[in-house]
């Protein structure tokens, strides 16, 4: 897991940054599909879908099947698994804390607008000069 190059990760993250591309990956997770089949649920033109597919292909997230006529796209799970295991776990751990912070901030704003009454949580004393 530690040998993944950052170029590879960058390409994967770029590919995953777009909701349409994530939806395409989700569709391919249930089996290979042609460009036409992939374009259908998205109400997008085939060239627009092809553009997304190129980004996904460059990131190694999908590949083109052997059938020369249909050229079906299929999911390549490895880069996604790598990247999800790598930064995604890190993100998930942070997000768990941040969601708690959301709750804490909401609580503090609700219960303690006048700051002077909340001595207990006063700012840490900073020595100056």
């Amino acid at each position, binding site marked *: 897991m*530690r040998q993944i190059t950052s170029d590879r990760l960058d390409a994967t*993250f770029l590919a*995953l940054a777009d909701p349409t591309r994530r939806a395409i990956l989700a569709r391919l997770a249930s089996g290979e599909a042609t460009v036409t089949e992939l374009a259908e649920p998205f109400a997008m033109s085939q060239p627009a879908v092809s553009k997304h597919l190129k980004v996904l292909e460059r990131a190694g997230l999908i590949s083109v099947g052997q059938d020369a006529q249909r050229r079906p796209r299929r999911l390549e799970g490895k880069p996604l698994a790598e990247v999800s295991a790598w930064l*995604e776990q890190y993100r998930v*751990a942070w*997000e*768990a804390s941040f969601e*708690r912070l959301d709750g*804490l901030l909401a609580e503090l704003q609700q219960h303690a607008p006048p700051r002077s009454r909340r001595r207990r949580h006063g700012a840490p004393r900073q020595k100056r000069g």
Partner: protein
Amino acid sequence: MVMTIDKAEVTSPSDREVLVRRSFKAPRALVYRAYTEPALLQRWLLGPPGWAMPVCEMDVRVGGRYRWRWQSDDGQSEFGFTGTFREVESLSRLVHTEAYDPGTLGDGYPGSEALVTITFTEAGGVTTVTSLIDFGSKAARDAAVATGMTDGMEQSYQLLDRLLAE
């Protein structure tokens, strides 16, 4: 899909860095307090469920030290971070070193120290916190991010499911 407009964004701007960005619906002064007051930090800076933060000491001034230590709820595992504040601009910017103490986890990249730069900006009642973590080397960054991957591939496939379900 859960509607959260403020999901954490994690990117890797360079080989040795990780950038974490998150927005909060709260004034900057309050978010800054949540990042600097031990009693508040202990309530949120906990990572995945099942961990508590029994030790949180903060001396928020240039040259001041901090010490954070987490313990699993079953008491079997612990790890921590320690460091020194290099820059303190109240409400807007904190720079501190960060040394990882693997505790009982026996993981990580011993002897390395990261430099963490946290900035707080507020616009329209929303405060955005950006943490840039410079691990000093690619090896240290990769090790830090990989820390805790004890469940290996099984965990990554669960994450893959989650990612695809978004």
